[in-house]
């Protein structure tokens, strides 16, 4: 066996799983002493181009409370054609189709390399993908134009059979009927009145599914499309024209007022429309917002411009009068959507806040995307949006719909909860821990939208009692069963089964310590922190956080926008936290601790410390914070650039130097989703603040003279530097109070 790092990498690549501990303490008592719980980051759809989907359905344990999937860890009696469930020890007969099974003729699911395996469900109709555009029309013409173009472009990216629909909103909400000849029709709703699905169904004149089924097989196909959701291939031109004719909301906006934007109702109608037409079918509600909702349910700010939108300050003082009500509204929408397996994406492009704080649950509960930009007329939005429709090598969208994740555990361990873009399905079972962490109390979660990087943090609890030792060599197993709708319309089931060794902490503390995955642990704890910061209130949480974080040495996390709201609007915090909660380990790490590369004539590009001391005049720095890609030209370099040396052939090397970080940045930009903000700045430039706010303030105006060093750039901040933090940490570490 290779080293733990290799083992971890291998496991991650194969199963998309990383545990905080790779050898588990064998009793509850020992586990709790270890502060960081046994937990894992699980990426259900981690890309496995080499994994061939299996064209049959999984074999399940026959015990009603178990239903685990046959996996390589099961013991198989080839002669008796029996297999023993490794979770509940139930002995099961193989189904008739496995009659030919033998040691040499094993089905794929029994091969160790198929610890992760994907089945294709053959039954049931193939469901179309549904994309419902919900478009704000209260925006500048320029923005609207850009948005319209993006939307028109997106039509060409959709599979021809995908159903699309269009809802526009401003003061009113319009549901557009598609494919009308000679006249364009839309249903209009008041922006101030919420409607439930039944009302909506009546008002839109949608035929109840039961009514259509009576008409025989032919009509049975019809529910697949209706007047509002039709196949792209059919209404491509029509919709393109329709989008082209979209006008700014015509209702006059008087001076000193915000336009009336019925976002809450528009989303409600979108959810309702899908709810009564395509329940439990993968669908994306793509919401494009040019500003905050200003009327009706879900409004986050009044239409008086003199009243600014709520800030953290207002929230603390409980001075945001719309916040609670709006949040409640969006939460209920998010719950409805997630119940039906629908995704809500939010593309909010405005200079001011748009209410992401209130709407975050829509994306968070449904696995939707949340994208924040300044304008629809920016490459950030345009490319991000385009990237949503990225396809994999098989030509399928890199997205999956309406997934449920079920976790099955060995008896010694139970699942406490999950943190990520999911909602609980409230499935009680033997492997559910009473101790909830994150979204707990269940062993099944719904993840309406999944992409290959969607990662959940799962927390476990070792329930084995100290006095019930586990036999030597025993292994704890965890099975992740993810059922989802593939973008091809197939239902698939991906099963990942992993196992880790038990170890007695008293005797094998060394091996446990060695199995610690500090990166995974950092992210897992960070998620937990963010979750608590989001969901709980009051000083207690902050104190808990501080105590935990200090004990966890997580200096950068403490300063990150995920926890630190200073300098961020509530919307931004929501946005950052949303991204942090769904991305995989690598990207999450970048978010916590940005990566800094230095380019100079002194040698090849090198990663440097995220420290103010790294900022030198003759360097070009490339910082990747996940959300921003920043190129910073040191003072000297900037002067050279200004002088135009890069234009001169004799300074070609300088031109190369300038170009190198740009190329690297492009590469990052191309792969990242959402598209980061790209910043090109220099010493003294206003945007250099993004860099300065991230680096460790080892030199500040308080200590630069004391240090007396010439290098680096002092940061004007009162934040403690890593040095101070470390000093404090050391003091705490040795004190018994910890």
């Amino acid at each position, binding site marked *: 066996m290779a080293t733990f790092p290799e083992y971890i990498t291998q496991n991650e690549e194969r199963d998309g799983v990383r545990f905080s501990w790779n050898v588990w303490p064998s009793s509850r008592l020992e586990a709790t002493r270890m502060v960081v719980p046994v937990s894992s980051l699980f990426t259900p759809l981690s890309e496995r181009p080499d994994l061939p989907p299996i064209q049959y359905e999984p074999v399940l344990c026959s015990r009603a409370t178990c239903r685990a999937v046959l996996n390589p860890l099961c013991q198989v009696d080839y002669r008796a054609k029996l297999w023993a469930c490794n979770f509940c020890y139930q002995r099961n007969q193989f189904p008739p189709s496995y009659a030919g099974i033998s040691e040499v003729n094993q089905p794929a699911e029994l091969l160790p390399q198929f610890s992760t395996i994907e089945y294709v469900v053959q039954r049931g109709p193939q469901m179309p993908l549904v994309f419902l555009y919900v478009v704000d029309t209260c925006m500048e013409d320029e923005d609207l134009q850009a948005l319209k173009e993006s939307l028109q472009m997106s039509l060409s990216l959709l599979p021809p059979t995908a159903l699309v629909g269009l809802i526009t909103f401003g003061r009113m909400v319009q549901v557009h009927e598609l494919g009308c000849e*000679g*006249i364009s029709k839309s249903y209009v*709703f008041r922006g101030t009145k919420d409607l439930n699905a039944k009302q909506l169904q009546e008002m839109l004149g949608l035929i109840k599914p039961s009514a259509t089924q009576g008409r025989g097989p032919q009509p049975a196909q019809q529910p697949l499309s209706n007047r509002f959701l039709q196949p792209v291939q059919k209404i491509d031109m029509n919709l393109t024209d329709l989008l082209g004719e979209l006008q700014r909301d015509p209702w006059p906006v008087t001076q000193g007022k915000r336009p009336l934007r019925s976002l809450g109702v528009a989303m409600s109608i979108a959810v309702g429309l899908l709810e009564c037409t395509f329940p439990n079918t993968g669908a994306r509600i793509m919401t494009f917002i040019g500003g905050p909702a200003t009327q009706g349910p879900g409004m986050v700010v009044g239409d008086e411009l003199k009243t600014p939108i709520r800030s953290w300050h207002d929230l603390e003082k409980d001075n945001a009068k719309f916040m609670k009500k709006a949040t409640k509204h969006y939460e209920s929408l998010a719950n409805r959507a997630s119940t039906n397996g629908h995704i809500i994406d939010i593309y909010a492009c405005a200079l001011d806040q748009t209410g992401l704080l209130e709407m975050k649950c829509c994306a968070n509960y449904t696995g939707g995307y949340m994208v924040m930009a300044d304008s629809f007329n920016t490459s950030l939005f345009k490319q991000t949006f385009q990237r949503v429709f990225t396809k994999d090598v098989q030509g399928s969208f890199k997205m999956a719909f309406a997934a449920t994740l079920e976790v099955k555990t060995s008896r010694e361990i139970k699942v406490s909860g999950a943190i990520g873009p999911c909602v609980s399905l409230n499935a009680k079972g033997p492997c559910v821990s009473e101790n909830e962490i994150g979204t707990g109390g269940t062993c099944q979660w719904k993840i309406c939208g999944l992409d290959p990087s969607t990662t959940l943090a799962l927390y476990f609890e070792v329930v084995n009692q100290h006095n019930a030792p586990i036999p030597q060599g025993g292994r704890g197993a965890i099975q992740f069963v993810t059922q989802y709708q593939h973008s091809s319309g197939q239902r698939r089931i991906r099963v990942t089964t992993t196992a880790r060794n038990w170890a007695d902490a008293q005797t094998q503390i060394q091996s446990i310590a060695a199995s610690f995955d500090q990166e995974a642990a950092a992210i897992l704890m960070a998620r937990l922190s963010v979750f608590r910061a989001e969901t709980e209130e009051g000083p207690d949480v902050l104190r808990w956080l501080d105590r935990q974080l200090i004990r966890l040495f997580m200096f950068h996390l403490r300063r990150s926008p995920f926890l630190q709201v200073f300098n961020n609007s509530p919307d931004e915090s929501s946005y950052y936290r949303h991204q942090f909660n769904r991305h995989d380990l690598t990207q999450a790490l970048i978010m916590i601790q940005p990566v800094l590369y230095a380019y100079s004539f002194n040698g090849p590009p090198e990663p440097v410390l995220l420290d103010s001391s790294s900022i030198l005049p003759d360097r070009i720095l490339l910082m990747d914070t996940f959300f921003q890609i920043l190129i910073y030209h040191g003072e000297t370099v900037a002067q050279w650039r200004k002088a135009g040396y890069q234009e001169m052939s004799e300074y070609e090397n300088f031109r190369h130097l300038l170009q190198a970080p740009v190329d690297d940045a492009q590469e990052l930009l191309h792969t990242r989703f959402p598209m980061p903000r790209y910043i090109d700045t220099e010493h003294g430039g206003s945007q250099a603040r993004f860099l300065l706010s991230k680096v460790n303030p080892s030199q500040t105006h308080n200590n630069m003279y004391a240090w007396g060093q010439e290098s680096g750039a002092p940061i004007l901040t009162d934040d403690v530097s890593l040095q101070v933090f470390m000093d404090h940490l050391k003091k705490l570490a040795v004190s018994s109070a910890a």
Partner: protein
Amino acid sequence: MNVNQHTPMASPYGQPQPGYGQPGFAPVDGGYPAPYAPYNGPASAYQPGPPPQGPARGPPTSGAPSAPQQYSQYSHSQGDMQNGPPPMTQAPPRPAASQPYNQGAVNLSGPQPSYPQHYGPQPSMQQVTNQMTGMQITSGPPTPAGPGYGTFGWIYISVSQPPVNTAYSAAPPHSYTQAPPPASSAPTQPPAPSPPPPSQQPFNSSLPPTSQQQFTSHAPPLPSSQQTFPPSSYSGPAPTPSHAPAPPVSQPQQSFPPTQPPFSSAPPPNSHPAFVSGPPPPAQGSFQPRAPPPSSQPGSFPPHGPMPPQQQPPPSQLPPYHSGAPPPRVQMPPTSMAQNNHLPPGPQGPPGPPGSMQQPPPQPGIQGGYPPQQNGAFGQVRGPQPGYAGPYPGQPNYGAPAPAPAPAPAAQKRLDPDSIPSPIQVIEDDKAKSTEPFATGVRGQAPPLVTTNFQVKDQGNASPRFVRCTAYNMPCTADMAKQSQVPLAAVIKPLATLPPDETPPYLVDHGEGGPIRCNRCKAYMCPYMQFIEGGRRFQCGFCSCVTEVPPHYFQHLDHTGKRVDCYDRPELSLGSYEFLATVDYCKNNKIPQPPAYIFLIDVSYNAVKSGMVNIVCQELKTLLDYLPRENPEMDSVVRVGFVTYNKVLHFYNVKSSLAQPQMLVVSDVSDMFVPLLDGFLVNVNESRLVIESLLDQIPEMFAETRETETVFGPVIQAGLEALKAADCSGKLFVFHTSLPIAEAPGKLKNREDKKLIGTDKEKSLFQSQVGFYNTLAKECVAQGCCVDLFLFPNQYVDVATLGVVPVSTGGSVYKYTYFQALSDKERFLNDLRRDVQKLVGFDAVMRVRTSTGIRATDFFGSFFMSNTTDVELAGLDCDKAVTVEFKHDDKLSEETGALMQCAVLYTSCSGQRRLRVHNMAVNCCSQLADLYRNCETDTIINFFSKYAFRGLLNNPTKAVRDTLINQCAQILACYRKNCASPSSAGQLILPECMKLLPVYLNCVLKSDVLMPGADVSLDDRAYLRQLIGCMDVPESHVFFYPRLLPLFESGSLPVAVRDSEERLSKGGVYLLETGLHLFLWVGASAQQELLLNIFGTPSFSQIDPSLTSLPVLDNPFSQRMREIIESFRAQRSRYMKLMVVKQEDKSELIFRHFLVEDKSASGGASYVDFLCHMHKEIRQLLS
């Protein structure tokens, strides 16, 4: 009736009756006798008077003579085609008191004190009546008989049954022709006729002519004054005897007076008109009807023979009379006197009272004396009388009821319809009389009837096309008003369309300060403002407050105290004009936006299937070019919008920049809103292509619809919200088919329950089913949103509820039950076109200011009132009339009269804010007689119908009917008691101006609304009820008394015939119009040639009863018929679909429903029966 009365009368007068009535008549002719008999009856009644006279007069003879005279008169009337008479009536009215009086005066003055005496009597009401009677008598006297008849004419004597019939119907036409020789000749040729005739003729001639002349000549005023005076003197002189002598023309009048004295109690003059007519009728009846009359007349003449001389003298006198047009005119005066007619009997009674009729003759002298009175009486009366003549005959019938009274007995049995007052006669008389343009300058002058074509010259009072009053001479005190029970009301049609030869109201701009108004009562500058202090101030005619004249408006006064620029300024010299309103008069102090028209079309299954949707859409494409505009050169500024709906609403964006229209569906009907702003209301020219594309597509889109449910409340809400959003006023055109049962505000349920009819709960069927629409209507009014509703129901749609909003917003409801594209398209489209094109004012507020003493207390029409004074109309179009009732709150003065100013503030269709002002001044009287002399029955009926129909909302139908009958009975009883000369209780005495009141009232009572037949749906009743509410007088008149034209004669527009089956000839073709319906009735034995000319087929059986228009055939007859039909349609605000009714076809039932003088299938009384009933009521009140 009179007959009856006569008897009584007789008794009073005692003696003669028998003698007179019978004698007279008897004498007249064997044949006549009967007819006359009735008359005689009356006569007899009169006779009482006569008796006295009798001696002198030789009652019998008188009777006879009178008859002749009457005849003559009648003949005149008849001869004149009754026109003569009508004119008389009309003339009389107009002459108004003043003229008549003058004449009377003249006559009197000339004549004798006798008049005075008559007048003398008048002083007291009774006296007046007496005088009236006297007058009548006199009138009778003029042609001694005539007068008597005249009076009789007024008086419906039961006796004259026979005559009646003959007189009117038969008489005029045929009898005339036949008997005519005498009669006709008589009338026209009065002079020519043989002596006997002469006598009559004289009268006739004199009468007719005189009447007219008198009118003209008569200075209304004089009469009255004279009358009064005379009375006293007369009273003294009263002695009929003198009358007898009086006979001479002048005398006649005088004589009357005398008679009056005796009658004094019953002012003959006044009574005459009405009643007289009664008697006359007989006479007339006898005249016309009976060829015999002639003969009889002869006979009578013979009697006259003796009379003749007198009569002859009369002739000579006639002139004098004529001057008085005496009889007639006198009656005119009678207007005040009118009553005299009744009295006449009485009055004459003295002279010829007994057989007033008869007597008259007998008392030529008296007559002579009477003449004057008659003049008065006749003047007015006559016209009527002639008519009445007929009526009377009818009365005889009454008499019949009353018959008990001696005279009538025989005749009374059965009233001859021809003897009762004939609407046609009155109408034709008025037409003949109204040849001159009507100048509004004279206060208190009643205009010609609505059925008459006349030109109006605005000389300081509003044209009758704008304002018509029930009374042009209002009682001075509330007590009088209460006593008479005559409603004081005005029917105002502020934006009425004027004929091309009349100038529309001028637009006056008083500059930035806005119109000049009285400081206190805020009345607008008008001719009633008195400038004082050299023109620096003006005193308000309404409240007497003195206001400074703004410097820019100052002008010097001339020596008469008038401003020198008086005739340069419409507001100082005209009755109607407009002010340009300033921003102060605008809502929110903002100049209004141009109005918008929104078309809301039902596209549910029924609407599509009936073809309505298709028709509307097709029509709109062209119709939109005819939106109202003030300047024909310019494009209309009215913007348009489109909505379709079933259970949801579809709005359309037709912005000019769009390549294709956009449909916006609002399915949330529970809380209506307008889904778009820009592009909903557009200029037609700019968006023409998009609109046309839309209108092409709407029928296609919904061609396959299966939706049958509709909403209604949200539809109006949608239009309202759209107007609100656009911040403008406007009009909604809603095309709707069914009961709105879809779940939405204003949802209705089917509550049609025939079992409720006749119960106390019936009223609830006329009320709105839900309160929602009342609230909605209020909101609409606040926004200036007028709603016009076109209904295409196949079943009950609850018009009572759906109509609430249209009715409250000044809109109209059109109903096309069982709409079929093929047959109803024309009617619907014409209605729609007219409705869209007609001029309309928006967001209007109307206020009626009055001079001290009276007050506008109640308003009827399509509008909304949030307080007690301001009539708010979201929309006011040129067809809408508002009826205003006035009540006294103080004493009025005869000197200043009563003034009213109706000011309507509205937004024109070009978006201009304006004030239209109509001023009206009427006289005031301290004598009831004057009131009765200056009434307008058509207007009264308009008021009564609106009053009653509104009453339905809160009272059981029966109570409403009873109230109506009761009030009319009181009116007539009051007249009888106070204005008519005493006569037998059995006599029905009607005021000249109101002699048609019973027949019209009966029509109101028989209308579907108040007395529904089994096949009349609740919707129809509610529809009609609402429709009447905003009708003006011409429309309500023809609605209640349809026009029935015989079409089988060639020549110019034929004279209408009465609405009775008896008048239909099997061989004829008739056209009947009600303003809503148009029937072409084809007699079963119509000539082939006729049919060929009209229908292109000679066979009766081949006529297609489903025709809705006549085939275009190239013959003059066909052409003329089509022209007539077109002209009818052009006169009405709603297009009348032609329905061909073949005699004895099923559809004849419907047609018969409109023969309002007959018994109706639903139990409505015939005219004759009703008249009898009315008489009974009156007698009850009197006893």
